């Protein structure tokens, strides 16, 4: 395995840059993506490399520039539209969940929308209620879009390259709290991984694509399946590590994309472990977590030795105060408790 060190944000940058080299129709637009080099430095250096035609600063007009992306995609371009945060996509909701995912259908197949919407999702750290959206549960119910939620630099690169080449609109959910991931050694769970944290360089593989709809077993285990997506994958790994010490072997499975959802791999894991905890960084009601749990019951009820436990945000708006926010979000402690609770009868 390569020992490459690369941050999540750099992986995103690599994916975009490689695809922009490859295809002139790809461009990046968003607030502060160009001259500022990205509010979170994801697009660092891209203006210099590709020029202002292809790396475009937009005013604070999410409806305007998200819609611009859809229109440009109708014309044949392949826009990457950056939301500084998915929390700011709500002012553009109509453009992204009406126009983007329904255009192909409404036009009888005439107008594909090969557009990627991407940005930070989930609590950024004490930003308060309106700035701490995790939009996966709200938007994954919309047919016509695809949704990816990468948890490692490797997945970030591989999935984003796939997203950019995909002919359908892709909602790409990153996380402010993961952008620096890969920079430090401390919380590196790569010992569990089949693949490294890091993606290959363009020299190593100039066509590194991770297909949508393929779950990744982030850690193998035998006693309980933990399904997690995005940032919570790391909480799950941390919980799994703690539980290992207690003699509970967890399998951490990361669907990586929600639409399509690789339910088969999840079911396979549950059939093996007979226990399952589902972790979801959004709110409990009508969520990705309830959907996954529900599908597990539907497909594998006889294989379950207990009910599925779901770990979500608490069902309250995100508070500012640090302790409260910590308590409200899913974390390793909650996941470990859920696993202990669900495997109690094992």
């Amino acid at each position: 395995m390569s020992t490459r060190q690369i941050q999540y944000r750099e992986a995103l940058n690599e994916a975009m840059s490689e695809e922009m080299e490859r295809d002139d129709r790809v461009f990046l637009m968003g607030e502060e993506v160009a001259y500022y080099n990205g509010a979170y430095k994801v697009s660092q250096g891209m203006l210099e490399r590709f020029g202002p035609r292809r790396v475009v600063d937009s005013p604070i007009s999410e409806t305007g520039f998200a819609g611009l992306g859809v229109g440009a995609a109708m014309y044949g371009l392949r826009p990457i539209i950056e939301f500084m945060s998915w929390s700011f996509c709500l002012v553009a909701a109509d453009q992204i969940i009406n126009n983007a995912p329904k255009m192909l259908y409404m036009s009888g197949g005439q107008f594909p929308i090969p557009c990627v919407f991407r940005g930070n999702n989930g609590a950024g750290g004490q930003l308060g209620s309106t700035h701490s959206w995790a939009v996966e549960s709200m938007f994954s119910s919309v047919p016509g879009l695809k949704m990816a939620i990468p948890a490692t630099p490797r997945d970030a690169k591989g999935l984003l390259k796939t997203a950019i080449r995909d002919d359908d609109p892709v909602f790409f959910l990153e996380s402010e709290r993961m952008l620096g991931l890969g920079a430090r050694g401390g919380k590196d769970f790569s010992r569990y991984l089949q693949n490294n944290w890091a993606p290959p360089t363009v020299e190593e593989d100039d066509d590194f694509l991770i297909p949508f709809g393929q779950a990744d077993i982030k850690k193998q285990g035998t006693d309980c399946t933990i399904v997690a997506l995005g940032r919570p994958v790391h909480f799950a790994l941390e919980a799994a590590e703690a539980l290992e010490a207690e003699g509970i072997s967890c399998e951490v499975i990361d669907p990586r994309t929600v639409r399509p959802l690789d339910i088969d791999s999840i079911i396979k894991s549950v059939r093996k472990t007979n226990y399952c905890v589902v972790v979801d960084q959004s709110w409990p009601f009508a969520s990705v977590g309830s959907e996954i749990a529900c599908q597990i019951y539907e497909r594998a009820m006889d294989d379950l030795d207990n009910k599925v436990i779901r770990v979500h945000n608490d069902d309250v708006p995100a508070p500012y105060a640090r302790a409260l926010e910590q308590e409200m979000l899913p974390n390793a402690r909650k996941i470990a408790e859920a696993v202990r609770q669900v495997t109690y009868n094992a």
Partner: protein
Amino acid sequence: MTTATGVKAELRPSESLSASDLKGMLARMMLIRRFEERTAQSYQQAKIGGFCHLYIGQEAVAVGSITALKGDDPIITAYRDHGHALARGMDPRYAMAEMFGKATGCAKGKGGSMHFFDKPHHMYGGHAIVGGQCPLGVGLAFAIQYEKKDNVAVCYLGDGALNQGAFHEAMNLAAIWRLPIIFVVENNMYSMGTHIARGTSMAEDLGKKAEAYGMPFERCDGKDVLATYDCFKRLADAMRGSTCKALGFDEDQGSGPAFVEAVTYRYKGHSMSDPQKYRSRDEVSEWEERDPITSLTNYLLERGTATQEEIKELDANAKKISLEAVKYATESEDLGVDELFTDVYVNPFGPYKKGQPPLLMLDSDESDESAEEPGESGDESGDAGDEQGDTDDEQSDEPADNDESGAADDEAK
């Protein structure tokens, strides 16, 4: 745009139009009128469902503006979209079939009246959320500039859309990047039952909306197809090749975006079920007296460009094509229920399947030709007049379990 002294000197672009150009414009307006009459009739017969908004009275806006454009200049509009599609050259058969929900429809029956699309004719829809098409239009213009094309995008909107944030964000983006786009508000005075003066500040001087974005403004008589043509021809020609330094083009070129108010009027209700208590019969009559089709007809007759017989023939042809469209739509196959899961994704997964392209995409060469005279490929003969057509009542197909109220039938839409 022209100084008081310059007005006379400058040739109006429409003065260069040939007799056949002019007759073509008349024919296209007549086609829209007759087609819409058939649409109304078919809606009454419940062959058409959902919401349906007629373009009758506004024909000069679509025909005047679109005639002034190049065939590959992208256009986009709201839900009152039949006129734009026909003006652009969409085969009326596909248009009618769409509303009948047939597989031969321009969108295979998946879009309906409010969502006409015609990629071969660079018609980017038919959009039903008020104002929602404006950012899309900006996207088209951005793509034109990005690809260094010599085109101009035209984005139509109703006066009601002036009050939507999407319109304003779109105007600003177009302005700062000098995108080649003409925003056209088809000011028919009403959004549903609300007179523009009740809903829009500065309704009496919409030029102020353009000034707010530093954009040139033109008010054109949208009941006069030649005035409309002139307005768009000048603006579009000046705009071609628009570029913007801020987007990395060497220098600013072309005139950048513009805003047009086309003053017009719809003779019919907002949709098919509008009691129209908000306006007087007199008001409607007054506007009907300035009918764009009648005006152009008289103009052509007065100038000797067309004879009374030619005019009659053009109208007969419009009726014939419209009737043929109904016949075609009636006889076409329903869209198969297996198409429910197609066209959701280009790269499908799970339950989804690849879709067949609509007919309109397959014969795009043919239909590019027919852009000259849409729908002439039909060989049906005879004037349809007030004939009621076949009335197989599709309502009777309605499964009982979805019919507990019938509310959708009798409401304003």
